[in-house]
Protein backbone atom coordinates (compact mmCIF):
# COMPACT_ATOMS: atom_id res chain seq x y z
CA UNK A 1 0.00 0.00 0.00
CA UNK A 2 2.75 2.43 0.85
CA UNK A 3 4.33 2.05 -2.56
CA UNK A 4 1.00 3.16 -3.97
CA UNK A 5 1.13 6.17 -1.67
CA UNK A 6 4.63 7.03 -2.84
CA UNK A 7 3.45 6.69 -6.43
CA UNK A 8 0.42 8.89 -5.77
CA UNK A 9 2.46 11.58 -4.04
CA UNK A 10 5.01 11.61 -6.85
CA UNK A 11 2.29 12.17 -9.41
CA UNK A 12 0.76 14.83 -7.18
CA UNK A 13 4.08 16.67 -7.11
CA UNK A 14 4.54 16.49 -10.86
CA UNK A 15 1.01 17.52 -11.77
CA UNK A 16 0.96 20.23 -9.14
CA UNK A 17 4.05 21.69 -10.79
CA UNK A 18 2.25 21.81 -14.11
CA UNK A 19 -0.87 23.25 -12.51
CA UNK A 20 1.16 25.96 -10.79
CA UNK A 21 2.29 27.05 -14.22
CA UNK A 22 -1.26 27.17 -15.52
CA UNK A 23 -2.27 29.04 -12.39
CA UNK A 24 0.34 31.68 -13.15
CA UNK A 25 -0.57 32.05 -16.79
CA UNK A 26 -4.34 31.98 -16.36
CA UNK A 27 -4.72 33.33 -12.86
CA UNK A 28 -2.17 36.12 -12.97
CA UNK A 29 -1.53 36.90 -16.59
CA UNK A 30 -5.18 36.36 -17.45
CA UNK A 31 -4.38 34.08 -20.39
CA UNK A 32 -6.95 31.30 -20.55
CA UNK A 33 -4.92 28.47 -22.06
CA UNK A 34 -6.80 25.33 -23.06
CA UNK A 35 -3.76 23.62 -24.51
CA UNK A 36 -1.46 24.05 -21.53
CA UNK A 37 -0.53 20.39 -21.47
CA UNK A 38 1.48 21.03 -24.63
CA UNK A 39 4.23 22.56 -22.48
CA UNK A 40 4.43 19.44 -20.36
CA UNK A 41 4.15 17.26 -23.44
CA UNK A 42 6.96 19.07 -25.20
CA UNK A 43 9.07 18.74 -22.09
CA UNK A 44 8.27 15.04 -21.85
CA UNK A 45 9.16 14.37 -25.46
CA UNK A 46 12.27 16.51 -25.43
CA UNK A 47 13.53 14.60 -22.42
CA UNK A 48 12.63 11.29 -24.01
CA UNK A 49 14.28 12.05 -27.33
CA UNK A 50 17.38 13.46 -25.68
CA UNK A 51 17.66 10.46 -23.39
CA UNK A 52 17.41 8.12 -26.35
CA UNK A 53 20.21 10.04 -28.04
CA UNK A 54 22.29 9.37 -24.95
CA UNK A 55 22.24 12.84 -23.49
CA UNK A 56 22.77 13.10 -19.73
CA UNK A 57 19.82 14.09 -17.54
CA UNK A 58 20.60 17.80 -17.07
CA UNK A 59 21.05 18.30 -20.80
CA UNK A 60 17.81 16.48 -21.53
CA UNK A 61 15.91 18.61 -19.05
CA UNK A 62 17.44 21.76 -20.44
CA UNK A 63 16.25 20.80 -23.90
CA UNK A 64 12.81 20.29 -22.42
CA UNK A 65 12.85 23.78 -20.91
CA UNK A 66 14.09 25.37 -24.11
CA UNK A 67 11.41 23.71 -26.23
CA UNK A 68 8.65 24.84 -23.88
CA UNK A 69 10.02 28.38 -23.76
CA UNK A 70 9.90 28.62 -27.54
CA UNK A 71 6.30 27.41 -27.61
CA UNK A 72 5.39 29.82 -24.81
CA UNK A 73 6.77 32.80 -26.71
CA UNK A 74 5.05 31.68 -29.93
CA UNK A 75 1.64 31.25 -28.34
CA UNK A 76 1.98 34.50 -26.38
CA UNK A 77 2.73 36.37 -29.61
CA UNK A 78 -0.37 34.84 -31.09
CA UNK A 79 -2.32 36.40 -28.24
CA UNK A 80 -1.45 39.85 -29.56
CA UNK A 81 -3.75 39.43 -32.50
CA UNK A 82 -6.45 37.24 -31.07
CA UNK A 83 -9.06 38.08 -28.48
CA UNK A 84 -8.94 35.93 -25.38
CA UNK A 85 -11.81 33.59 -26.28
CA UNK A 86 -10.29 32.80 -29.64
CA UNK A 87 -6.86 32.45 -28.10
CA UNK A 88 -8.22 29.76 -25.79
CA UNK A 89 -9.47 27.79 -28.78
CA UNK A 90 -6.24 28.43 -30.65
CA UNK A 91 -4.17 26.97 -27.80
CA UNK A 92 -6.44 23.93 -27.76
CA UNK A 93 -5.85 23.50 -31.46
CA UNK A 94 -2.08 23.95 -31.16
CA UNK A 95 -1.90 21.28 -28.47
CA UNK A 96 -3.94 18.94 -30.63
CA UNK A 97 -1.72 19.54 -33.64
CA UNK A 98 1.37 18.86 -31.57
CA UNK A 99 -0.20 15.63 -30.39
CA UNK A 100 -0.97 14.72 -33.99
CA UNK A 101 2.67 15.34 -34.86
CA UNK A 102 3.73 13.12 -31.97
CA UNK A 103 1.32 10.44 -33.15
CA UNK A 104 2.46 10.47 -36.76
CA UNK A 105 6.13 11.35 -36.91
CA UNK A 106 7.41 7.99 -35.77
CA UNK A 107 10.93 8.78 -36.85
CA UNK A 108 11.09 11.43 -34.15
CA UNK A 109 8.62 10.45 -31.51
CA UNK A 110 8.04 6.77 -31.96
CA UNK A 111 4.51 7.43 -33.20
CA UNK A 112 1.69 5.82 -31.32
CA UNK A 113 4.13 3.50 -29.53
CA UNK A 114 6.04 6.40 -28.12
CA UNK A 115 9.55 6.16 -26.79
CA UNK A 116 10.11 3.49 -24.21
CA UNK A 117 12.90 1.92 -22.27
CA UNK A 118 14.26 5.16 -20.97
CA UNK A 119 16.71 4.50 -18.22
CA UNK A 120 14.96 5.61 -15.05
CA UNK A 121 16.64 7.78 -12.46
CA UNK A 122 18.18 6.23 -9.39
CA UNK A 123 18.12 2.85 -11.12
CA UNK A 124 21.02 1.69 -9.00
CA UNK A 125 19.15 2.02 -5.74
CA UNK A 126 17.16 -0.92 -4.33
CA UNK A 127 13.42 -0.92 -4.72
CA UNK A 128 11.73 1.22 -2.09
CA UNK A 129 14.61 3.71 -2.00
CA UNK A 130 14.49 4.30 -5.71
CA UNK A 131 10.91 5.48 -5.59
CA UNK A 132 11.50 7.45 -2.42
CA UNK A 133 14.48 9.16 -3.98
CA UNK A 134 12.43 10.14 -6.98
CA UNK A 135 9.64 11.40 -4.76
CA UNK A 136 12.19 13.48 -2.88
CA UNK A 137 13.45 14.93 -6.16
CA UNK A 138 9.93 15.72 -7.36
CA UNK A 139 9.02 17.26 -4.03
CA UNK A 140 12.17 19.34 -4.08
CA UNK A 141 11.41 20.63 -7.56
CA UNK A 142 7.86 21.41 -6.49
CA UNK A 143 9.12 23.30 -3.46
CA UNK A 144 11.53 25.30 -5.59
CA UNK A 145 8.81 26.18 -8.10
CA UNK A 146 6.36 27.07 -5.34
CA UNK A 147 8.93 29.27 -3.61
CA UNK A 148 9.97 30.85 -6.88
CA UNK A 149 6.38 31.68 -7.76
CA UNK A 150 5.78 33.13 -4.31
CA UNK A 151 8.69 35.47 -4.91
CA UNK A 152 7.43 36.42 -8.34
CA UNK A 153 3.92 37.14 -7.12
CA UNK A 154 5.10 39.29 -4.24
CA UNK A 155 7.39 41.31 -6.43
CA UNK A 156 6.83 44.29 -8.64
CA UNK A 157 6.44 41.92 -11.58
CA UNK A 158 3.65 40.12 -9.75
CA UNK A 159 1.92 43.38 -8.94
CA UNK A 160 2.16 44.42 -12.56
CA UNK A 161 0.42 41.18 -13.54
CA UNK A 162 -2.27 41.75 -10.94
CA UNK A 163 -3.06 45.18 -12.31
CA UNK A 164 -2.97 43.96 -15.89
CA UNK A 165 -5.28 41.02 -15.38
CA UNK A 166 -8.15 43.20 -14.20
CA UNK A 167 -7.49 46.69 -15.55
CA UNK A 168 -5.30 46.58 -18.62
CA UNK A 169 -5.72 50.30 -19.39
CA UNK A 170 -4.58 51.18 -15.90
CA UNK A 171 -1.52 48.98 -16.26
CA UNK A 172 -0.68 50.72 -19.53
CA UNK A 173 -1.06 54.12 -17.88
CA UNK A 174 1.43 53.04 -15.25
CA UNK A 175 3.90 52.31 -18.02
CA UNK A 176 3.60 48.52 -18.28
CA UNK A 177 3.68 46.77 -21.63
CA UNK A 178 0.98 44.09 -21.51
CA UNK A 179 2.53 42.14 -24.36
CA UNK A 180 5.89 41.94 -22.62
CA UNK A 181 4.28 41.02 -19.30
CA UNK A 182 2.26 38.25 -20.89
CA UNK A 183 5.20 36.88 -22.76
CA UNK A 184 7.40 36.71 -19.68
CA UNK A 185 4.60 35.24 -17.59
CA UNK A 186 3.99 32.61 -20.27
CA UNK A 187 7.62 31.54 -20.24
CA UNK A 188 7.62 31.49 -16.44
CA UNK A 189 4.50 29.33 -16.60
CA UNK A 190 5.79 26.95 -19.25
CA UNK A 191 9.12 26.10 -17.62
CA UNK A 192 7.86 24.22 -14.54
CA UNK A 193 5.37 22.37 -16.73
CA UNK A 194 8.16 21.27 -19.05
CA UNK A 195 10.32 20.25 -16.11
CA UNK A 196 7.46 18.18 -14.71
CA UNK A 197 6.89 16.62 -18.12
CA UNK A 198 10.56 15.73 -18.42
CA UNK A 199 10.64 14.25 -14.95
CA UNK A 200 7.50 12.27 -15.73
CA UNK A 201 9.26 10.69 -18.69
CA UNK A 202 12.10 9.58 -16.47
CA UNK A 203 9.66 8.35 -13.86
CA UNK A 204 7.62 6.03 -16.01
CA UNK A 205 10.50 5.36 -18.42
CA UNK A 206 8.19 6.14 -21.30
CA UNK A 207 6.66 8.98 -23.25
CA UNK A 208 3.74 8.64 -25.64
CA UNK A 209 1.15 10.83 -27.38
CA UNK A 210 -1.31 10.24 -24.57
CA UNK A 211 0.69 12.59 -22.38
CA UNK A 212 -0.88 15.42 -24.40
CA UNK A 213 -4.52 14.42 -24.74
CA UNK A 214 -6.94 17.33 -24.14
CA UNK A 215 -8.33 15.66 -21.03
CA UNK A 216 -4.94 16.22 -19.41
CA UNK A 217 -5.32 19.98 -19.80
CA UNK A 218 -8.80 19.70 -18.36
CA UNK A 219 -7.39 17.81 -15.39
CA UNK A 220 -4.95 20.70 -14.86
CA UNK A 221 -7.80 23.18 -15.07
CA UNK A 222 -9.72 21.15 -12.52
CA UNK A 223 -6.73 21.24 -10.18
CA UNK A 224 -6.45 24.99 -10.59
CA UNK A 225 -10.16 25.81 -10.25
CA UNK A 226 -10.79 23.43 -7.35
CA UNK A 227 -8.01 25.05 -5.41
CA UNK A 228 -8.90 28.53 -6.53
CA UNK A 229 -7.65 30.44 -9.55
CA UNK A 230 -4.71 32.52 -8.46
CA UNK A 231 -4.08 30.57 -5.28
CA UNK A 232 -0.85 28.56 -5.27
CA UNK A 233 -1.73 26.78 -2.05
CA UNK A 234 -5.05 25.87 -3.63
CA UNK A 235 -3.18 24.24 -6.48
CA UNK A 236 -1.48 21.89 -4.03
CA UNK A 237 -4.81 20.91 -2.52
CA UNK A 238 -6.40 20.59 -5.93
CA UNK A 239 -3.52 18.45 -7.12
CA UNK A 240 -3.97 16.08 -4.20
CA UNK A 241 -7.72 15.78 -4.77
CA UNK A 242 -7.67 15.35 -8.52
CA UNK A 243 -4.73 12.99 -8.59
CA UNK A 244 -6.37 10.84 -5.93
CA UNK A 245 -9.48 10.53 -8.08
CA UNK A 246 -7.33 9.82 -11.12
CA UNK A 247 -5.35 7.14 -9.37
CA UNK A 248 -8.33 5.32 -7.95
CA UNK A 249 -10.07 4.86 -11.28
CA UNK A 250 -7.72 2.07 -12.46
CA UNK A 251 -8.58 0.18 -9.27
CA UNK A 252 -12.16 -0.01 -10.47
CA UNK A 253 -10.88 -2.14 -13.27
CA UNK A 254 -9.40 -4.59 -10.78
CA UNK A 255 -12.07 -4.50 -8.09
CA UNK A 256 -15.18 -4.45 -10.23
CA UNK A 257 -13.76 -6.14 -13.29
CA UNK A 258 -14.92 -3.41 -15.64
CA UNK A 259 -13.50 -2.82 -19.08
CA UNK A 260 -10.68 -0.36 -19.57
CA UNK A 261 -13.06 1.78 -21.64
CA UNK A 262 -15.34 2.09 -18.67
CA UNK A 263 -12.49 2.79 -16.27
CA UNK A 264 -11.21 5.50 -18.58
CA UNK A 265 -14.69 6.89 -18.88
CA UNK A 266 -15.19 6.99 -15.14
CA UNK A 267 -11.93 8.83 -14.72
CA UNK A 268 -12.91 11.43 -17.31
CA UNK A 269 -16.41 11.75 -15.98
CA UNK A 270 -15.30 12.23 -12.39
CA UNK A 271 -12.84 14.94 -13.35
CA UNK A 272 -15.50 16.64 -15.45
CA UNK A 273 -18.00 16.46 -12.62
CA UNK A 274 -15.47 17.81 -10.13
CA UNK A 275 -14.72 20.74 -12.40
CA UNK A 276 -18.36 21.50 -13.08
CA UNK A 277 -19.37 21.20 -9.44
CA UNK A 278 -16.54 23.50 -8.45
CA UNK A 279 -17.50 26.08 -11.07
CA UNK A 280 -21.15 26.05 -10.10
CA UNK A 281 -20.83 26.09 -6.34
CA UNK A 282 -17.34 27.26 -5.49
CA UNK A 283 -16.18 29.35 -8.44
CA UNK A 284 -13.48 30.89 -6.31
CA UNK A 285 -12.18 27.50 -5.23
CA UNK A 286 -11.61 25.88 -1.88
CA UNK A 287 -8.61 28.05 -0.92
CA UNK A 288 -9.27 31.27 -2.79
CA UNK A 289 -6.60 33.85 -3.43
CA UNK A 290 -6.55 36.35 -0.59
CA UNK A 291 -5.66 39.98 -0.55
CA UNK A 292 -1.97 40.33 0.17
CA UNK A 293 -1.21 41.68 3.63
CA UNK A 294 1.58 44.17 3.24
CA UNK A 295 3.25 45.18 6.44
Amino acid at each position, binding site marked *: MSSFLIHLLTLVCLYAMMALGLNLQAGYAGMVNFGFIAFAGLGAYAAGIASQLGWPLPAALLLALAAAAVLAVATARLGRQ*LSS*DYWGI*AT*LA*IAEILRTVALNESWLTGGAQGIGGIRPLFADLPSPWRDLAFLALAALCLALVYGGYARIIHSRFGRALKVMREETSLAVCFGYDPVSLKMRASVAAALPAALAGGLLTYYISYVGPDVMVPSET*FALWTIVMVGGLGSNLGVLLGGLLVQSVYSFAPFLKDWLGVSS*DLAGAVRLGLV*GLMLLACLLWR*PRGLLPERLEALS
Partner: protein
Amino acid sequence: MLQFLLDVLIRTSDLLLVSVGLSTLYSLIRFPNVAHVQYAMLGAFLSLAGQRAGLPLGLAAALSCVLVGCLAVLLNIFVFMRLLRSGSAVAMIGSLAVSLIAVALVLSTAGSRPLQYTQDISAPLTLDGVAVSSAQAGSIACGALTLLIFSVLLYRTNLGRSMRALASNRALALASGIDANRVTNLITFASGVLAALGGTMLGLTESVHVNLGNNLLIPVFSAAILGGLGNPLGAAAGALLIALAETLVINVDFGSLVGRSMQFFPVAYVSAVSFLILLVTLMVRPYGIFDREVRRV
Protein backbone atom coordinates in the same frame (compact mmCIF):
# COMPACT_ATOMS: atom_id res chain seq x y z
CA MET B 1 -13.44 17.69 -61.15
CA LEU B 2 -16.90 16.49 -60.31
CA GLN B 3 -15.49 14.16 -57.69
CA PHE B 4 -13.67 17.12 -56.20
CA LEU B 5 -16.82 19.21 -56.04
CA LEU B 6 -18.68 16.33 -54.53
CA ASP B 7 -16.04 15.84 -51.86
CA VAL B 8 -16.22 19.53 -51.02
CA LEU B 9 -20.00 19.44 -50.79
CA ILE B 10 -19.97 16.39 -48.57
CA ARG B 11 -17.41 17.88 -46.25
CA THR B 12 -19.32 21.17 -46.19
CA SER B 13 -22.50 19.43 -45.20
CA ASP B 14 -20.57 17.63 -42.45
CA LEU B 15 -19.59 20.92 -40.91
CA LEU B 16 -22.45 23.15 -41.95
CA LEU B 17 -25.20 22.47 -39.48
CA VAL B 18 -22.98 22.39 -36.43
CA SER B 19 -21.16 25.60 -37.40
CA VAL B 20 -24.36 27.49 -38.10
CA GLY B 21 -25.83 26.43 -34.77
CA LEU B 22 -22.68 27.44 -32.93
CA SER B 23 -22.45 30.80 -34.62
CA THR B 24 -26.08 31.70 -33.99
CA LEU B 25 -25.86 30.76 -30.36
CA TYR B 26 -22.75 32.82 -29.79
CA SER B 27 -24.57 36.01 -30.69
CA LEU B 28 -26.91 35.40 -27.76
CA ILE B 29 -24.79 33.79 -25.10
CA ARG B 30 -21.49 35.55 -25.76
CA PHE B 31 -19.07 32.77 -24.98
CA PRO B 32 -17.69 29.97 -27.18
CA ASN B 33 -19.57 26.87 -26.11
CA VAL B 34 -17.14 24.02 -26.59
CA ALA B 35 -19.82 21.50 -25.59
CA HIS B 36 -21.71 22.31 -28.78
CA VAL B 37 -19.76 19.80 -30.84
CA GLN B 38 -20.67 17.12 -28.31
CA TYR B 39 -24.35 17.79 -29.04
CA ALA B 40 -23.57 16.48 -32.53
CA MET B 41 -21.96 13.39 -31.05
CA LEU B 42 -24.88 12.82 -28.69
CA GLY B 43 -27.34 13.30 -31.54
CA ALA B 44 -25.59 10.64 -33.60
CA PHE B 45 -25.64 8.15 -30.73
CA LEU B 46 -29.25 8.85 -29.82
CA SER B 47 -30.31 8.31 -33.43
CA LEU B 48 -28.42 5.05 -33.38
CA ALA B 49 -30.06 4.01 -30.13
CA GLY B 50 -33.44 4.85 -31.59
CA GLN B 51 -32.79 2.79 -34.67
CA ARG B 52 -31.53 -0.14 -32.62
CA ALA B 53 -34.71 0.10 -30.52
CA GLY B 54 -36.70 -0.56 -33.66
CA LEU B 55 -37.62 2.90 -34.91
CA PRO B 56 -37.15 3.83 -38.55
CA LEU B 57 -34.08 6.00 -38.98
CA GLY B 58 -35.99 9.17 -39.86
CA LEU B 59 -38.11 8.99 -36.74
CA ALA B 60 -35.12 8.09 -34.58
CA ALA B 61 -33.25 11.08 -35.95
CA ALA B 62 -36.18 13.42 -35.32
CA LEU B 63 -36.53 12.16 -31.77
CA SER B 64 -32.82 12.48 -31.20
CA CYS B 65 -32.87 16.09 -32.43
CA VAL B 66 -35.69 16.99 -30.08
CA LEU B 67 -33.96 15.33 -27.13
CA VAL B 68 -30.66 17.04 -27.79
CA GLY B 69 -32.44 20.35 -28.30
CA CYS B 70 -34.08 19.96 -24.89
CA LEU B 71 -30.77 18.97 -23.35
CA ALA B 72 -29.16 22.07 -24.80
CA VAL B 73 -31.85 24.27 -23.28
CA LEU B 74 -31.60 22.59 -19.88
CA LEU B 75 -27.84 22.90 -19.84
CA ASN B 76 -28.13 26.51 -20.85
CA ILE B 77 -30.56 27.38 -18.09
CA PHE B 78 -29.03 25.40 -15.25
CA VAL B 79 -25.36 25.50 -16.07
CA PHE B 80 -24.19 28.04 -18.60
CA MET B 81 -26.28 31.01 -17.59
CA ARG B 82 -25.14 30.52 -14.01
CA LEU B 83 -21.51 30.21 -15.01
CA LEU B 84 -21.73 33.29 -17.23
CA ARG B 85 -22.30 35.35 -14.11
CA SER B 86 -18.71 34.62 -13.19
CA GLY B 87 -17.46 35.63 -16.62
CA SER B 88 -17.15 34.15 -20.06
CA ALA B 89 -13.86 32.39 -19.29
CA VAL B 90 -15.54 30.44 -16.48
CA ALA B 91 -18.44 29.62 -18.80
CA MET B 92 -16.00 28.35 -21.41
CA ILE B 93 -14.21 26.19 -18.86
CA GLY B 94 -17.60 24.92 -17.74
CA SER B 95 -18.46 23.98 -21.29
CA LEU B 96 -15.22 21.99 -21.39
CA ALA B 97 -16.33 20.17 -18.26
CA VAL B 98 -19.71 19.39 -19.81
CA SER B 99 -17.87 18.10 -22.88
CA LEU B 100 -15.79 15.79 -20.73
CA ILE B 101 -18.85 14.46 -18.95
CA ALA B 102 -20.68 13.86 -22.24
CA VAL B 103 -17.75 11.95 -23.68
CA ALA B 104 -17.38 9.95 -20.46
CA LEU B 105 -21.07 9.00 -20.48
CA VAL B 106 -21.01 7.82 -24.05
CA LEU B 107 -17.69 6.03 -23.58
CA SER B 108 -19.02 4.13 -20.61
CA THR B 109 -22.28 3.10 -22.27
CA ALA B 110 -21.31 2.58 -25.88
CA GLY B 111 -17.60 1.89 -25.75
CA SER B 112 -14.91 3.29 -27.98
CA ARG B 113 -15.46 1.27 -31.14
CA PRO B 114 -17.03 3.03 -34.11
CA LEU B 115 -20.59 1.94 -34.81
CA GLN B 116 -22.79 2.06 -37.88
CA TYR B 117 -26.43 2.70 -38.60
CA THR B 118 -28.19 -0.14 -40.36
CA GLN B 119 -28.72 1.17 -43.83
CA ASP B 120 -30.26 -0.46 -46.87
CA ILE B 121 -27.45 -1.48 -49.13
CA SER B 122 -28.56 0.35 -52.21
CA ALA B 123 -26.43 0.85 -55.22
CA PRO B 124 -24.80 4.25 -55.17
CA LEU B 125 -26.00 6.79 -57.70
CA THR B 126 -23.57 7.54 -60.44
CA LEU B 127 -23.23 10.92 -62.03
CA ASP B 128 -20.78 11.19 -64.83
CA GLY B 129 -18.68 8.37 -63.46
CA VAL B 130 -18.65 9.68 -59.92
CA ALA B 131 -20.26 7.55 -57.22
CA VAL B 132 -22.49 9.09 -54.61
CA SER B 133 -23.97 6.92 -51.90
CA SER B 134 -27.55 7.63 -50.93
CA ALA B 135 -26.36 8.63 -47.46
CA GLN B 136 -24.04 11.24 -48.92
CA ALA B 137 -26.69 12.61 -51.25
CA GLY B 138 -29.12 12.67 -48.36
CA SER B 139 -26.65 14.51 -46.19
CA ILE B 140 -26.04 17.23 -48.75
CA ALA B 141 -29.75 17.64 -49.45
CA CYS B 142 -30.59 17.69 -45.76
CA GLY B 143 -27.91 20.27 -45.07
CA ALA B 144 -29.06 22.57 -47.82
CA LEU B 145 -32.71 22.26 -46.88
CA THR B 146 -32.09 22.87 -43.20
CA LEU B 147 -29.98 25.89 -43.98
CA LEU B 148 -32.80 27.27 -46.09
CA ILE B 149 -35.38 26.71 -43.38
CA PHE B 150 -33.11 28.21 -40.77
CA SER B 151 -32.49 31.29 -42.90
CA VAL B 152 -36.20 31.76 -43.33
CA LEU B 153 -36.59 31.45 -39.59
CA LEU B 154 -33.90 33.99 -38.99
CA TYR B 155 -34.80 36.60 -41.54
CA ARG B 156 -38.52 36.25 -42.03
CA THR B 157 -40.06 35.43 -38.67
CA ASN B 158 -40.60 37.41 -35.52
CA LEU B 159 -38.42 35.03 -33.58
CA GLY B 160 -35.58 35.63 -35.96
CA ARG B 161 -36.03 39.37 -35.79
CA SER B 162 -36.08 39.29 -32.00
CA MET B 163 -32.94 37.22 -31.99
CA ARG B 164 -31.11 39.60 -34.28
CA ALA B 165 -32.28 42.53 -32.18
CA LEU B 166 -31.03 40.92 -29.01
CA ALA B 167 -27.76 40.09 -30.65
CA SER B 168 -27.02 43.57 -31.92
CA ASN B 169 -28.26 45.71 -29.05
CA ARG B 170 -29.37 43.81 -26.01
CA ALA B 171 -30.42 46.73 -23.84
CA LEU B 172 -32.55 48.29 -26.54
CA ALA B 173 -34.12 44.96 -27.43
CA LEU B 174 -35.03 44.30 -23.81
CA ALA B 175 -36.45 47.78 -23.48
CA SER B 176 -38.68 47.20 -26.48
CA GLY B 177 -40.27 44.26 -24.73
CA ILE B 178 -38.44 41.28 -26.19
CA ASP B 179 -38.41 38.35 -23.79
CA ALA B 180 -34.71 37.53 -23.81
CA ASN B 181 -35.06 34.24 -21.96
CA ARG B 182 -37.72 32.91 -24.32
CA VAL B 183 -35.78 33.90 -27.42
CA THR B 184 -32.51 32.53 -26.05
CA ASN B 185 -34.10 29.23 -25.09
CA LEU B 186 -35.83 28.82 -28.44
CA ILE B 187 -32.65 29.56 -30.36
CA THR B 188 -30.69 27.26 -28.07
CA PHE B 189 -33.20 24.53 -28.84
CA ALA B 190 -32.86 25.18 -32.57
CA SER B 191 -29.07 25.09 -32.47
CA GLY B 192 -29.19 21.85 -30.48
CA VAL B 193 -31.46 20.37 -33.12
CA LEU B 194 -29.09 21.53 -35.85
CA ALA B 195 -26.10 20.01 -34.09
CA ALA B 196 -27.87 16.69 -33.51
CA LEU B 197 -28.98 16.57 -37.13
CA GLY B 198 -25.47 17.37 -38.30
CA GLY B 199 -24.08 14.66 -36.07
CA THR B 200 -26.58 12.10 -37.31
CA MET B 201 -25.72 12.93 -40.92
CA LEU B 202 -22.04 12.63 -40.13
CA GLY B 203 -22.72 9.29 -38.49
CA LEU B 204 -24.46 8.19 -41.66
CA THR B 205 -21.71 9.18 -44.04
CA GLU B 206 -18.86 8.08 -41.80
CA SER B 207 -19.49 6.27 -38.54
CA VAL B 208 -20.82 6.91 -35.08
CA HIS B 209 -18.02 7.09 -32.58
CA VAL B 210 -17.25 8.80 -29.31
CA ASN B 211 -14.67 11.16 -30.82
CA LEU B 212 -17.11 12.49 -33.41
CA GLY B 213 -17.51 15.71 -31.49
CA ASN B 214 -13.82 16.15 -30.69
CA ASN B 215 -12.88 15.72 -34.33
CA LEU B 216 -15.34 18.42 -35.30
CA LEU B 217 -14.04 20.94 -32.80
CA ILE B 218 -11.31 22.65 -34.76
CA PRO B 219 -12.99 22.71 -38.19
CA VAL B 220 -16.37 23.81 -36.84
CA PHE B 221 -14.94 26.58 -34.71
CA SER B 222 -12.73 27.65 -37.58
CA ALA B 223 -15.72 27.82 -39.90
CA ALA B 224 -17.86 29.71 -37.41
CA ILE B 225 -15.13 32.19 -36.51
CA LEU B 226 -14.17 32.67 -40.17
CA GLY B 227 -17.70 33.66 -41.02
CA GLY B 228 -17.88 35.87 -37.99
CA LEU B 229 -19.45 34.57 -34.82
CA GLY B 230 -23.08 35.62 -34.70
CA ASN B 231 -23.40 35.54 -38.48
CA PRO B 232 -25.08 32.19 -39.29
CA LEU B 233 -24.88 32.50 -43.05
CA GLY B 234 -21.27 33.54 -42.64
CA ALA B 235 -20.73 30.29 -40.77
CA ALA B 236 -22.14 28.43 -43.73
CA ALA B 237 -19.73 30.24 -46.01
CA GLY B 238 -16.96 29.48 -43.55
CA ALA B 239 -17.87 25.80 -43.62
CA LEU B 240 -17.65 25.85 -47.41
CA LEU B 241 -14.26 27.52 -47.30
CA ILE B 242 -12.84 25.11 -44.77
CA ALA B 243 -14.21 22.16 -46.72
CA LEU B 244 -12.70 23.57 -49.89
CA ALA B 245 -9.30 24.06 -48.28
CA GLU B 246 -9.26 20.62 -46.69
CA THR B 247 -10.33 18.84 -49.88
CA LEU B 248 -7.87 20.83 -51.93
CA VAL B 249 -4.98 20.06 -49.66
CA ILE B 250 -5.74 16.36 -49.52
CA ASN B 251 -6.25 15.93 -53.25
CA VAL B 252 -3.55 18.07 -54.73
CA ASP B 253 -0.45 16.19 -55.74
CA PHE B 254 2.42 18.17 -54.34
CA GLY B 255 4.85 15.91 -56.15
CA SER B 256 5.91 18.55 -58.63
CA LEU B 257 6.84 20.93 -55.83
CA VAL B 258 8.86 18.42 -53.89
CA GLY B 259 10.47 16.71 -56.84
CA ARG B 260 8.86 13.35 -56.19
CA SER B 261 6.34 11.47 -58.25
CA MET B 262 3.49 11.35 -55.75
CA GLN B 263 3.48 13.46 -52.64
CA PHE B 264 0.27 14.01 -50.81
CA PHE B 265 -0.51 15.97 -47.72
CA PRO B 266 -0.76 13.60 -44.77
CA VAL B 267 -4.42 13.16 -43.88
CA ALA B 268 -3.73 13.28 -40.18
CA TYR B 269 -2.79 16.92 -40.41
CA VAL B 270 -5.95 18.01 -42.15
CA SER B 271 -7.33 19.72 -39.11
CA ALA B 272 -4.12 21.71 -38.96
CA VAL B 273 -5.12 23.15 -42.32
CA SER B 274 -8.40 24.60 -41.13
CA PHE B 275 -6.68 25.90 -38.04
CA LEU B 276 -3.97 27.62 -40.06
CA ILE B 277 -6.52 29.22 -42.34
CA LEU B 278 -8.34 30.49 -39.30
CA LEU B 279 -5.19 31.92 -37.77
CA VAL B 280 -4.10 33.66 -40.93
CA THR B 281 -7.56 35.11 -41.51
CA LEU B 282 -7.84 36.38 -37.95
CA MET B 283 -4.56 38.20 -38.27
CA VAL B 284 -5.84 40.04 -41.29
CA ARG B 285 -9.49 40.41 -40.34
CA PRO B 286 -9.91 39.86 -36.59
CA TYR B 287 -13.69 39.68 -36.80
CA GLY B 288 -14.02 37.15 -39.58
CA ILE B 289 -13.99 37.53 -43.34
CA PHE B 290 -17.29 39.32 -43.53
CA ASP B 291 -16.48 41.54 -40.55
CA ARG B 292 -20.02 41.32 -39.35
CA GLU B 293 -19.38 39.56 -36.13
CA VAL B 294 -21.34 40.53 -33.12
CA ARG B 295 -18.79 42.20 -30.92
CA ARG B 296 -18.93 41.23 -27.31
CA VAL B 297 -19.36 44.35 -25.21
